[in-house]
């Protein structure tokens, strides 16, 4: 056995019980004092991530890029942005993460490149050359008008005129992000090479950005096409043939019926984000009703055994409201984006804590619900300490400010001069690094960070949260969101009070008559379940998780 051997037991479905943690590399920790986070800095913080219980780190794009879309505009698939370090730094980081029992996945954009990418430059200047057909060119900018424009705030059309080539090029996102042409087999080959390159360096998988838009077809909206699924199945087969325990996580901001297609028959992506459930959690807490969550979960089809939902409260993008009705969207804007600056495209560009008015019970409740649902939770860096946002910064930068490590200069994020920082750290009295930082919260027994650490540890003792069945209980009290998770002999009852006031609820637990609910945090035993409805009272925004146990003590 070599010392560099793998540090994990084989487990093709490891991601089903994993806690994910999303990191904006630029904002995490500056290891070389240049004002920007990097791989060396991140490597220094691995003990922290291990200690709070992270199983898998998800990195936003770190490739060379002009950074007009936070790095999602990739100019070279085979290298590291110089601000972040070198490929060697990356390799060392992955190895160090593995040694600590953590895996690493990275964002990969397959749909498009930056317009700075040499492929695009070659495609513009030499239409008949080897890259001439790498992008989607047309003489007519009215074709495929059924395809919606995603970045409504900045893009008037999905076509942009290129004077060099004298044609229009197709782009589903920004005009500086031309779509690759997947009808060209050479493009497919190139993309598979990219995947292999990073998997060979030890990466455990990819979050596939903007995956529904790979192909264009007449008379369609260009989303979720059969050809796209066929290509993704090919990607999966190529990965499975050569590598063990890797994961593909699809970013498909679609309705559940469409998203489940990305699992195929267990032969496409292993994971996909569940987008629609997230805004309904926020709605549920605001409206004090469980129905929006219960309904969307009911509308969520079964998924293959080897597949898993990725669940999140917030991420690096705006809180997206594409997967809600117009009424629901108006409601969300009304409640969560009172200042128009908070809106972006079809969404709200704010972090978790400010969205919930920094209410500790609300933040805990939302995490409890997130952790109790069928799926794997994805945390966004900084939300574990309740970091704030800065709506006066452009685009989505407001939720990408430096991680707040200490109350020292620059929040302990960097030793560079303040003026050199890629973005200013939060400094306001409520959310600023003086008040909100890792060091202080680690030392404070009742901090959010310490609470979340306990929640993660608890979840990890019970694979049922990742692997078990889900069954909603529908008590008469509409303010209570209650459900049962079951796996092997482990039965968990989760009861959440969405109301601002204390509530009583009667639950029909007759099927579990004779079992004893044991509260999971304090291990307190509650009265045995009898024939009659089980009565519970919950404090404002309170919740209980119980393990239903046989009475072993006689």
């Amino acid at each position, binding site marked *: *056995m070599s*010392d560099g*051997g*793998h*540090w*994990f*037991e*084989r487990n093709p479905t490891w991601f089903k019980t994993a806690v994910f943690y999303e990191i904006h590399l630029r904002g995490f920790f500056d290891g070389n004092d240049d004002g920007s986070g990097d791989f060396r800095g991140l490597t*220094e*913080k691995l*003990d*922290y991530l*291990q*200690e709070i219980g992270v199983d898998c780190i998800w990195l936003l794009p770190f490739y060379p890029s002009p950074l007009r879309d936070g790095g999602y505009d990739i100019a070279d698939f085979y290298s590291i942005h110089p601000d972040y370090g070198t490929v060697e730094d990356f390799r*060392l980081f992955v190895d*160090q993460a593995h*040694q*600590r*029992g953590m895996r690493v996945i990275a964002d990969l954009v397959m749909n498009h490149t930056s317009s700075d990418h040499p492929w695009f430059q070659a495609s513009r200047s030499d239409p008949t050359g080897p890259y001439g057909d790498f992008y989607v060119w047309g003489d007519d900018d009215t074709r495929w008008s059924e395809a919606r424009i995603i970045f409504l705030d900045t893009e008037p059309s999905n076509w942009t005129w290129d004077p060099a080539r004298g044609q229009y090029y197709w782009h589903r996102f920004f005009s500086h992000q031309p779509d690759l042409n997947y009808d060209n087999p050479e493009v497919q080959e190139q993309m598979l090479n990219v995947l292999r390159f990073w998997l060979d360096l030890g990466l455990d998988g990819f979050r596939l950005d903007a995956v529904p838009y790979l192909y264009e077809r007449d008379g369609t909206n260009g989303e979720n096409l059969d050809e796209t699924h066929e290509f993704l199945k090919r990607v999966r087969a190529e990965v499975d043939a050569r590598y*063990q325990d890797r994961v593909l996580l699809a970013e498909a901001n679609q309705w559940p019926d469409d998203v489940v297609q990305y699992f195929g028959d267990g032969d496409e992506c292993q994971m996909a984000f569940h987008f629609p459930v997230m805004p309904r959690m926020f709605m549920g807490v605001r409206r004090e009703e469980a129905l929006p969550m219960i309904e969307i979960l009911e509308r969520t089809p079964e998924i293959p055994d080897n597949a898993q939902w990725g669940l999140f409260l917030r991420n690096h993008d705006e809180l997206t409201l594409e997967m809600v009705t117009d009424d629901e969207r108006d409601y969300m804007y009304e409640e969560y984006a009172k200042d128009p600056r908070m809106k972006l495209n079809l969404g709200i560009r704010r972090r978790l804590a400010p969205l919930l008015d920094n209410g500790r019970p609300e933040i805990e409740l939302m995490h409890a619900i997130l952790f109790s649902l069928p799926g794997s939770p994805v945390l966004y860096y900084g939300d574990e300490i309740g970091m704030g946002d800065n709506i006066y910064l452009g685009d989505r930068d407001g939720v990408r400010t430096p991680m707040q*490590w*200490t109350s*020292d200069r620059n929040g*302990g994020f960097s030793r560079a001069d303040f003026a050199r920082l890629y973005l200013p750290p939060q400094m306001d009295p409520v959310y600023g690094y003086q008040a909100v930082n*890792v*060091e*202080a*919260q*680690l*030392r404070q*027994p009742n901090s959010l960070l*310490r609470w979340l*650490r*306990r929640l993660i540890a608890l979840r990890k*003792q*019970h*694979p*049922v949260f990742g*692997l078990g069945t889900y069954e909603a209980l529908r008590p008469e009290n509409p303010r209570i969101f209650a459900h049962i998770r079951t*796996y*092997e*002999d*482990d039965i968990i009852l989760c009861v959440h009070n969405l109301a601002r006031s204390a509530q009583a609820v009667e639950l029909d637990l007759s099927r579990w008559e004779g079992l004893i609910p044991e509260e999971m945090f*304090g*291990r307190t035993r509650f009265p045995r379940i009898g024939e009659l409805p089980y009565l519970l009272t919950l404090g404002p925004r309170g919740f209980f998780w119980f393990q239903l146990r046989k009475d072993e003590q006689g």
Partner: protein
Amino acid sequence: MTEEQALIEFVTSQRWFGSKTRDAIHARVIDCAVLRDEDPRIEVQIVEIGFDTGTHETYQLVVDDGGFDALADPRSVRELVHMLRTGRNLPAGEGVVEFGTIEGMAAVGQELREARPISGEQSNTSIVFDEELILKVFRRLEAGINPELEMLRFLTQHGFENIAQLAGWYAYGGPPMDTTLGILQRFVANGQDGWELALDSLAREPEGFVARLRRLGEVTGRMHTVLGSDTSDPNFCPEETSVESVGLLTASVDEEIEQVFLDIPDSVDELGPIRGRGEEVRERLRMLTNVGGRGRVIRHHGDFHLGQTLWANNDWVIIDFEGEPARSLPERRRKRSPLRDVAGMLRSFAYAASALPLLRGVDPPAGFEEHARSEFLAGYRETVDPTLVPSGSSFERLLAVFELEKAVYELRYEMNNRPEWIAIPVAGIVRMLAEEVPV
């Protein structure tokens, strides 16, 4: 009884099976390699035991035809050592079992005439050959290199002499996992167990023993200096402590204190002196963790106490570098302040003093613990690389944090396993609460 049930029964009834309080409901052989084909046939098996909550643990079995533990049979263990010396690979179903030897050690214990098992072991199985070699078979397996192999190799390569030299090892590598299966070491003949020696000496000639503890301090300091000396090896390179490291330490110790105090039963008299004082202990922790200088973090022993030492040929030998068995492999490999080891040893002196009346029926000499501490620390400071440890009063404070951590760990252990020993960690915690916080 089905084969699976038989396997569950067999594994869960072994003394090395670590999760006796949990419900095992599945068992399967993940991979196996035939060590010897003819009578007696011997197989090395990697077995997964699944629990009712859906988690699992992995164990190594060495079994004969009848499905019994072949390590009880001298012929089998000899076969294992022979294989080890060939340095060859043995095909398993999916992977391979690799055998490795250390240069220059092949001549040690060639004959393998007599094999005797070591008694009283908890988590592994060890067999001694001719008082020259000892084979340690790891039972509970985790993915990755076992720290014991890693540490012994490093210390041997860097010329640290107070260990039992590594002679060889065997490991499994394959798609299910890479894992260390066992190690072969030189056996320290006539080595006296440090714990037993402490009890015997305290009853008879305490002064001479305290002088030896000064030497133990020197050996420990030297061990840490060596462990923190190689910046070219990323697995051992000493690192600056990060700003949040003390916070991380505080958080984990604090949680342990809270959990253990939640579990303190009302019925046990020995717990009286600390019952209801959980908050006081946590408060003490917060005061202690205002540490200024932090020193550096290095790989260290990880489970350091008198029972991990031997006195032989007028010097100390440090053994058993696996780390605390209850912790996961990544945790055991983690770099921490070397003061964690120092604290472990200081707590061990307290144990020896308290155990003496229980086990030998005599009281320790007055002031023994204080004297032992100061001698050990004096020896330690003489040899340890001063850049590895905090300076001034930060040294005492960080040391006190680790002592508190250890005492809380002991409290949990004794509550679960040896109620008659509870008074020892209780007395330790009471003493720590009464002490002045070093400033």
